[in-house]
């Protein structure tokens, strides 16, 4: 049972988080920013970036022993 869990699950904390996970979290995916005061990137389609972030992160999910 324990072994099965270890293979099926990976916990990534702090420094273990991949760069792409970080990008996936910090990117503005079209959240409405109000007013011309903001020069943000609300209008830019970032879907492709998020996609590659998720896919690359998915590749990393190989069976390996759980940390700690």
């Amino acid at each position, binding site marked *: 049972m324990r072994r099965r*869990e270890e293979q*099926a*699950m990976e*916990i990534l904390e702090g420094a273990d988080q991949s760069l792409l996970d970080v990008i996936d979290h910090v990117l503005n995916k079209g959240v409405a920013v109000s007013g011309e005061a*903001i*020069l943000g990137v609300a209008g830019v389609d970032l879907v492709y970036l998020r996609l590659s972030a998720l896919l690359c992160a998915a590749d990393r999910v190989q069976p390996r022993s759980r940390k700690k």
Partner: protein
Amino acid sequence: MSDLTYLYCVVQREKAPPLARAPRGLPGTGTPRAIDAGRGLWLVASDAPAAGYGEASIGRGLQDLAWVSARALPHEAVIEFVGRSGTVLPMKLFTLFRNDERALEHVAGQRRRIDRLLERLAGREEWGLRVLIDEPRALERAEASARSEAKGASGTEFLLRKKKQRDLSREVIERGGERAAALFDELSRRTDDSRRRAPPPGPAGRRVLLDAAFLVRRGQVKPFHAAVRKAAGRLGRDGYELTLTGPWPPYNFVAESA
């Protein structure tokens, strides 16, 4: 051209957040500094040259994953640092204002919503969960169990079992969505808030069934992990893989719709 104001986050604190040891922030920007927004609220921002952070530069940079990466990490690092000194509302990457006054105006205009959010986010952290199904592996497992049953069977029985094997495989895959939804519901009940994000179409054979964020009270992180681990044990048998990431500043819980 004058500098723009790059906003990392808003933080709730009686006194200014200590930033002397803060990470340097985005390339080309000034060191992060605190701007008083009044009544225990501070903006953490830095000066960003319009040449490198204007709309055109960002538009160009966004085509380049390496360029984005070199900015995403420092952005996250500054917010994590500030998050240790108070409750933060993290801004998304490239939240820029023409100047400090505009940033302050924006925050003042949203003050009621911000105060409400801060109350909901205090003492909590975000955890991300992805559930994937490895389709070839899921099929292999279903087939292996059907094969072991078919050992030594007669011709007719063998064919029946072959059919059963096919049905089983289909079921494993079709039920993936349902099981992911059930897991999301279960974990949502255990946490203070949750967001399900539309999973992107994965490459052949590896489908992202669930991409979700949970808002977890700090004291509840251990039981939350235990629940995810339990689910991983259950789902792992059938070819599912779970990835839990965190703790994150609550990026997914500060959106306008929240």
